[in-house]
């Protein structure tokens, strides 16, 4: 990554919220809301890979889908290329969508089964009227080679391809419009481990070639450790910790991050250098009715009195690392191990 790109912010998200109303009765009165995403803020720099990790239901996918308005956010501000994106105006977000393509989790359902690969990859070009028929054909030919497939695949249909090949088609489709940002929603979790590494390498190659920016949504920490520049950890609709990969993986501050990292399977289970496994008790609380104070305090092994009262602010540990935890704010040492 070029040094002068480091300070170039591509995407800035400020206090993004998505609340799903819970309606009851024939009049549809609102009796509450599921706070799937509850005040998420982050910045993504041009050319970097920003990962969002967290367990199922923490709102990481919802966050990703809110960015290009596939799910309309309840509130919050999103700046793309220093321009605020208005989610109420179709023309506005259609323009942004072109520069913000999505790669989906399930390659089996992300390709239209009735369309040939040729048609699937050319679809974004046709929709956005990018050139004549022969220009589009040429572009599709070069795209399919770019993702490591061959032109004979173009005449095939999705059911004739393997999972990894389908995901490559999905990547080619996302690249077709030359987007600045690609939102990868668990792009490898449906694939075999051997195929995962191929696809991850392809992601890295493409990033180098086109200076792409990725938002990488995943629950697989080993994948995240491999691919990310910076990482944000989400719990129950909020980011609890974010920082560079090295900071998060080597020096996690938030007890939740520590627990999460300790759950990663290791290569040599009997080695003495392994992290101790922290077992959290209970289930994640319901986002409809989160616990008072810090959302994590009911399961936190090191909670203090303050945790029950107020949600901790995001504090900077250093300029590469931010965390929302009372123990960090009060300079108490956090050792769950």
């Amino acid at each position, binding site marked *: 990554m070029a040094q002068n790109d480091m300070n170039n912010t591509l995407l800035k998200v400020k206090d993004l919220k998505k609340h799903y109303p819970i309606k009851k009765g024939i009049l549809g009165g609102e009796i509450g809301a599921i706070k799937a995403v509850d005040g998420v803020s982050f910045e993504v720099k041009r050319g970097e890979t920003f990962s969002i990790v967290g367990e199922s239901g923490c709102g990481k996918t919802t966050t990703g*889908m809110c960015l*290009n308005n*596939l799910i309309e956010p309840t509130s919050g501000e999103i700046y793309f290329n220093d321009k605020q994106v208005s989610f109420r105006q179709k023309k506005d977000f*259609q323009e942004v*969508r*072109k520069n*913000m*393509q*999505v790669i*989906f*989790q*399930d390659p089996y*359902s*992300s*390709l*239209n*089964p*009735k*369309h*040939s690969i040729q048609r699937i990859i050319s*679809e*974004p070009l046709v*929709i*956005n009227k990018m050139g004549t028929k022969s220009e589009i054909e040429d572009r599709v030919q*070069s795209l399919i*080679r770019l993702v490591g497939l*061959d*032109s*004979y695949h173009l*005449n*095939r*249909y999705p059911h004739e391809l393997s999972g990894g090949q389908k995901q490559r088609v*999905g990547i080619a*489709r996302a690249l077709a*419009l030359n987007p600045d940002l690609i939102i990868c929603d668990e792009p490898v979790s449906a694939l075999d481990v051997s195929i995962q590494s191929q696809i991850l390498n392809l992601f890295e190659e493409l990033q180098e*070639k086109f200076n792409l920016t990725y938002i990488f949504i995943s629950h697989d920490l080993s994948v995240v450790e491999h691919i990310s520049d910076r990482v944000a950890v989400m719990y129950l609709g909020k980011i609890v910790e974010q920082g560079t990969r090295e900071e998060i993986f080597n020096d996690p501050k938030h007890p939740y991050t520590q627990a999460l990292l300790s759950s990663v399977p290791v290569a040599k289970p009997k080695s003495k250098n392994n992290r101790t496994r922290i077992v959290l008790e209970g289930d994640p609380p319901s986002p409809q009715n989160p616990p008072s104070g810090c959302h994590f305090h009911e399961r936190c092994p090191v909670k203090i009195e303050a945790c029950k009262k107020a949600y901790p602010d995001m504090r900077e540990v250093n300029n590469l690392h931010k965390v929302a935890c009372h123990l960090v704010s009060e300079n108490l040492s956090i050792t769950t191990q």
Partner: protein
Amino acid sequence: MEPTVKKANYYFPEKEKRKRKSPEWEAFKKNKLGVASLVILIIFCLIAIFAPMLMPYDPLAQDMLNRLAGPSADHWLGVDPNGRDILSRIILGSRTSLIVGFGAVLVSSLIGFGIGMIAGYKGGRLDDIVMRFLDSIMSIPLLLFGVMVVVALNSSMLTLIIAIGIGLVPGCARVARGSTMELKEKEFIKSAISMGASDIRILLTHILPNITGALLVISTLHMTTVIMVEASLSFLGVGIQPPTPTWGNMIQDGFNFVRDQPGIAIYPGIALIIVSVSFNVLGDAIRDAVDPHIKKQRN
């Protein structure tokens, strides 16, 4: 950026256009009953199209001397109470049944599928309003609805087609809506949205091709309904008016002579049963081919 090495594709010539083998069609071909019903229906369609050439007699000409005659070498299926050749009338009557059948199904499909897909895709309040309105149409029995419209307007073939067609719109809309709602959660639809595809484009190129199977099933099954309703209306005397032969009014003609000459009512009845059962079997066969899951559950 591009590799300049030209790859040799001996086994997969680049320009080869491969035709997609439809798995549904392959599955359908294995169903003998389904194929048989399709063949029968094609034969009936051909009969309807070439009716004037196939009729041995003028279906309206009265030969009062042979009135109520049984089957003979001259009149294979006998002669009706007004001295007209029954076989000729059944052949011409197939036109009425099939034209009203295809016409009404076309009307209900065009309107119903359109409404259903839009309601299912848009969801929300629009969906609620449209579907409650269609439910209210559905609550009127189809036959009664047909009688009402025909009595209020007139009993031409066009009125019948429109009346029965509108009566079937709710059924079509329900199927289209359900299939659309199921499909719109798929990721390829979301991907199309994120590329900036318009709603119309998504409905026509992404959703419609993936639900044609379900739509074909409901349309085929509706053919049976339409043909039976048309025959019932004719039998009741409010459908296509005599002397134009329809299977329904032929059964009515033979009704008073059932004891002496049952064939007059039975032969058009048999034609009616063959066609409507064939459409039913065909519909089931298509359903099995399109959705093997259902078949597995049933067996």
